[in-house]
């Protein structure tokens, strides 16, 4: 494996972690929006307590992926920023509103129950719904190979250059998929975090429903995918084992939910979503931005790559023990 491929892999690991952790924080916002029934307020309280201590740390995975991307693959970052300016700006607005509304809601008022603060809860929830859609859509635009070299400034019209690559069925279906996946993860994690049995059942039902919806979303994304993506996902040598594993993880997650094995459900759901992401990564090898920008072609000089790897190694030594500590303090079940 080349150094560039290794770093591309590391960036993708960071994105995967963002999907599993930051994604679930967005999913929590979705369930806040959809909170219903007699335990409505307790559902919201549980969601807020689960997100509170960790969302900033979970959010940094995205920053890490981004800075490593522009350090190690500057042309890819430049092209993404140029051609996906509009959806990424909208993602940013969503991220800004989500994060600030959450703290305004939790910290701004005179205590947690402060009802005049509730409108911040609504902003938080709506931003949590829209941001994953747009994030998924940008991922779909990348996967579909709609961001070719010279896309900008070669006389094509504004719409064709800056809008059409992402405002199309496949990219949008990936957006829906991301939203459903994040909601599914959040529901599964919340079954694990809830202390009260009724609350746990609330989220179990939500997890089962969104798990089923995830199948539908994945299937429609596959149907809408451009031929070269679908081809890779079906005929490549790694495709069959990957699909078998993903299916096994999905079945495990749903069966564990059914039999109320919360810890196992969590592992299964995380594995399922991760495997789907890695399927995407494998399908677009050797390209970092299909159809023409390869990992090797976009890579920074070796001196930069070596140092970036050293920084990652050094950072990991600090990062993983700290993360372990964070999750032990707040997510450990004593």
């Amino acid at each position, binding site marked *: 494996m080349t150094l560039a491929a290794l770093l591309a892999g590391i960036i993708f690991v960071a994105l995967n972690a963002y999907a599993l952790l930051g994604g679930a924080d967005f999913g929590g916002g979705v369930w806040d929006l959809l909170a219903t029934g007699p335990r409505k307020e307790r559902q919201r309280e549980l969601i807020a307590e689960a997100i*509170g*201590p*960790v969302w*900033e*740390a979970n*959010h*940094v995975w*995205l*920053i*890490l992926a*981004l*800075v*490593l991307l*522009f*350090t*190690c*693959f*500057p*042309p890819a*970052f*430049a*092209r993404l*920023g*140029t051609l996906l*300016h509009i959806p*990424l*700006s909208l993602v*940013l*607005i969503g*991220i*800004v509103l*989500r*994060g*600030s509304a959450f*703290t*305004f809601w939790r*910290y*701004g008022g*005179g205590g947690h129950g402060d009802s005049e603060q509730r409108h911040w809860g609504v902003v938080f929830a709506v931003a949590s719904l829209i941001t994953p859609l747009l994030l998924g859509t940008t991922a779909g635009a990348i996967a579909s190979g709609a961001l070719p070299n010279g896309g*900008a*400034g070669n006389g094509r019209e*504004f719409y064709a250059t800056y809008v059409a690559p992402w405002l199309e069925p496949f990219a949008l279906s990936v957006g829906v998929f991301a939203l459903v996946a994040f909601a599914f993860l959040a529901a599964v994690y919340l079954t694990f975090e809830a202390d009260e049995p009724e609350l746990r059942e609330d989220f179990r039902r939500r997890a089962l429903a969104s798990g089923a919806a995830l199948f539908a979303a994945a299937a429609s994304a596959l149907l809408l995918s451009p031929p070269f993506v679908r081809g890779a996902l079906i005929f490549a040598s790694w495709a069959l084992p990957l699909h078998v594993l993903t299916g096994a993880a999905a079945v495990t997650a749903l069966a564990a939910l059914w039999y109320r094995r919360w810890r196992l459900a969590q592992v299964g759901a995380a594995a399922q979503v991760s495997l789907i992401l890695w399927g995407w990564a494998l399908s677009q090898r050797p390209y970092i931005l299909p159809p023409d920008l390869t990992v090797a072609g976009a890579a*920074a*000089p070796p*001196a*930069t790559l070596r*140092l*970036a790897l050293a*920084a*990652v190694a*050094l*950072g990991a030594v*600090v*990062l993983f023990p*700290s*993360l372990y*500590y*964070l999750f032990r*303090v*707040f997510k450990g079940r004593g």
Partner: protein
Amino acid sequence: MSDLLAARSQMGISLAFHIVFAVIGIAMPLMMVVAERRWQVTGHAIYLDLAKRWAKGTATLFAVGAVSGTVLSFELGLLWPRFMEFAGSIIGMPFSLEGFAFFTEAIFLGVYLYGWDRISPRAHLWAGVAVAVSGAASGIFVVIANAWMNAPTGFELVGGQVVSVNPIAAMGNAAAVSQAIHMTLAAYAATGFAVAGIHALFLLRDPANAFHRRALQIALIVGAPAAVLQPLSGDLSARHIAVHQPAKLAAAEAVFHTQAGAPLTLGGWPDVAARETRFAVLIPYTLSLLAFHDPHAVVKGLDAVAPEDWPNVPVVHLSFQLMVALGTYLAVLSLWVGWLAWRRRDLAHNRWLMRAIALATPMGFLAVEAGWMVTELGRQPWVIYGVLRTADAVTPMPGLVVPFVTFTLLYCFLGVMVVWLLYRQILRSPTMPEWRGFYMPVGGRGNVKSQGSEGEAG
């Protein structure tokens, strides 16, 4: 509005917004840690209350800092893709290190804010220390990246291609040390005096309030030393730009003509068309003395630079004057505080001092903004000084005025909300029946006074 101007304005607004929260994120954790440590040492609940209230306000500000910082990381690609394509491999290094510093900061912030009852007091204090250290580290890393834009090194240009990239050399650029010191001090000075100023306002009404007295003391311990050092570190910065970025110094000082024994220009309005500065007070030889430590040294004027490479002289000059004026005020005020503290005077009953500190509340932040205008506008028309022009770095996407207006409105809205929420929280500070008449030893020097005897000093 041209696309270039819209992009520059959006970048400028985003940074000017973010820097407020970044500065607070660097300095507030230090103050919280000092308060918490005092609680652990003295056992006085008042310090714990202080640490918790500060932490509550900081939590809101941190979140806004984090999201506005995220916007910036994306904006580098959304607005300046050609800059990033050029520079990413050279200065990505400090950004990557910064990424890890953010991680430790965010992780231990979560532990600090939500862990009061979950971990031991000692572990809690260390979590606070980790936040303070990684906050300062992330600020230093990003400033190193900015310093490289002012003093680019660590690569060679062959036929427009970047070769021989050396990211370590890029991080060791000539501006890095002076900028990193100046910025870090600025964070402590600005936040320290902002917090001290707010508590001084309360003390003007109620000088015996023990809560605000402790708060003032800790804020000044953090802010005053930094404010005293700031002119010295500013001098280091000025001597750096005198050698490496003559156009910036010339604009900051409004020097149109290269001359030996240059005078220092105070105030005045630079008339670019006439190439002279009107209504200014000139102090002979002082600029040469300050910039080169030699009264007869030659200071390059703007005439040494082609007019199309001039920055916006009036704005840079006025920003620089503003920063130096505010810096002087804060430094003198800090010396006054230091003198009174050394004489063991009671600060809170000195009404003139309290007024002077209350007046200083916004000054550090204004100086920070003004200083960045000097650095960033003074570098124009270059995004990478002498290497890449801002006009060549901007994205080809048209219609940039739309995101500029959108983000400006978003930031205005957020700014108003933050101020409103903090205002409500500050109003809820213990006004004070809770702490009134509370018997407290003053500071760590052991001169115990009760509230009744405090009136005698000042």
